[in-house]
């Protein structure tokens, strides 16, 4: 089992979700994050003073999948999120040792989906 963490552009969420659905990946968790990456920030002006905003709004997806699903999940995220412009985001893959469904107390690969 793996935990996939993906940082994507806020406006790509719907596209990513659709790609995941097509691959029958329906479960995920989303949080909002602020990211510093290669992408330059933008400038705001407030009362005449210039501000560089270098923490950009991103979404952080967390998707736990069984190992055989990892590649297709990654592919789906890329299809949904990629615009080939700086700021498209990043995917991290981490080992997942256990998973429990609270409702049924099922464990392991059963519980993930």
């Amino acid at each position, binding site marked *: 089992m793996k935990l996939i963490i993906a940082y994507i552009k*806020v*406006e790509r*969420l*719907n596209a990513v979700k659709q790609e995941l659905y097509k691959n029958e990946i329906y479960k995920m968790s989303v949080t*909002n994050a602020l990211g510093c990456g290669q992408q330059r920030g*933008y*400038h*705001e*002006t*407030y009362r005449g003073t210039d501000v560089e905003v270098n923490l950009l709004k991103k*979404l952080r997806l967390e998707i736990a999948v069984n190992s055989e699903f990892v590649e297709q999940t990654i592919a789906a995220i890329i299809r949904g999120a990629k615009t080939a412009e700086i700021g498209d985001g990043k995917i991290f893959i981490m080992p997942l040792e256990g998973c429990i469904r609270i409702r049924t107390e099922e464990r392991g690969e059963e519980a993930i989906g």
Partner: protein
Amino acid sequence: MFLGISSVKAAESNVMLSEQMFTLNNLWILIATVLVFIMHLGFATLEAGLTRAKNCVNILFKNVMTVAIGLLTFALVGFNIMYPGNEWTIVKWFGFAGFGLNCPEGAAGLINYNGGNYSYYADFIFQGMFAATAATIISGAVAERMKLTSYLIFCTLFVGIVYPIVGSWGWGGGWLSDLGFKDFAGSAFVHSVGGWGALAGVMLLGPRSGKYVLNQSKAIMGHNMPLAAIGVFMLWMGWFGFNGGSVFSADPEALSLVFVTTTMSAVAGIATANITSWIISKKPDLSMVLNGCLAGLVGITACADAVTVNESLIIGAVSGVIVVLAVLGFDKVRLDDPVGALSVHLVCGTWSVLATGIFCEGISFATQLIGVVVIGIVSFASAYAIFGVLKVTLGIRVHKEEELRGLDIGEHGLESYSGFQIFDCQ
């Protein structure tokens, strides 16, 4: 002989009396001006509340600028186009009494001005507050996607020229007033003019991105319902000045009636909008009830001084129903109007003018219909032309990327709610 003397005394006393009445009426017009003024806050907060957080600075900015543009252009040309006096260039269709404000000296600008009810300056400032509202209506309909500079240019031309020309036909003594057309406080000259302008804008701009996806209309939620509610209450409060001030005196009979009809139409609109939307969407919908209230207010505006209380209830009730249907209808035909400006101001404004033909004695329905049609054609065509020229020159729509990120960052480089975590993926 003493009779003579007594008469003189009485006459003097009469003059003093009417000076007091003049002071009183004038004061009411000024207080009504304050009330109409606060409608601009109402529009600002309503429009901001019903759109997304990422476009909120933009909307506030537009609404503040609109007041300034409205009053500056009205002072420069609008007032003298709308009330040309005898200076008609194209008889009863267009007149212009010159640039700037020219208050007649002495009594002529005071007690002798316009029959002794209010002064020149009171007239100007009350009318000036009205002027800006027509543009503000448009600002809501084109929200969340229109380029700021193009909006400001449009607003200047529309409020400075189109609005007063159309208004002069009725309120300036033009051809519509000669026909006997009745529009008490501006359902046609303010609300429908603004509404037609909004329609042109909505058509030329197209819907917000994400609004219509795969044959489906998606709801794009407003970000702040308390703000929207503040807006509606402020507008309602202002309407007491909008309609009440249009009595143009503090006459107790007329003014008290106007207060009652205005209020009862609003509450009837709330009630029927609630019922209608509850039936249709199975839920009590706050945004519809708020629109219902405004619908009732617009609905009574053309005839608040000339209907009975029961008639005002009917007019308001009808307004509440049609505003809900109109919101749904515009959505069906994919005219994306984030705040319901078309439904409230255009549809209910038109209904109000026609209702005047139905309910008010001595008013011909045909005349009202002529007014509706001609005002519609001219306002829509002018707005379409201005928007059209802007579209092919400066452009009227922000880039898609800017739209997605929000106009606040794109146009102003400033967030509305700095520090708040806002999650918006539409």
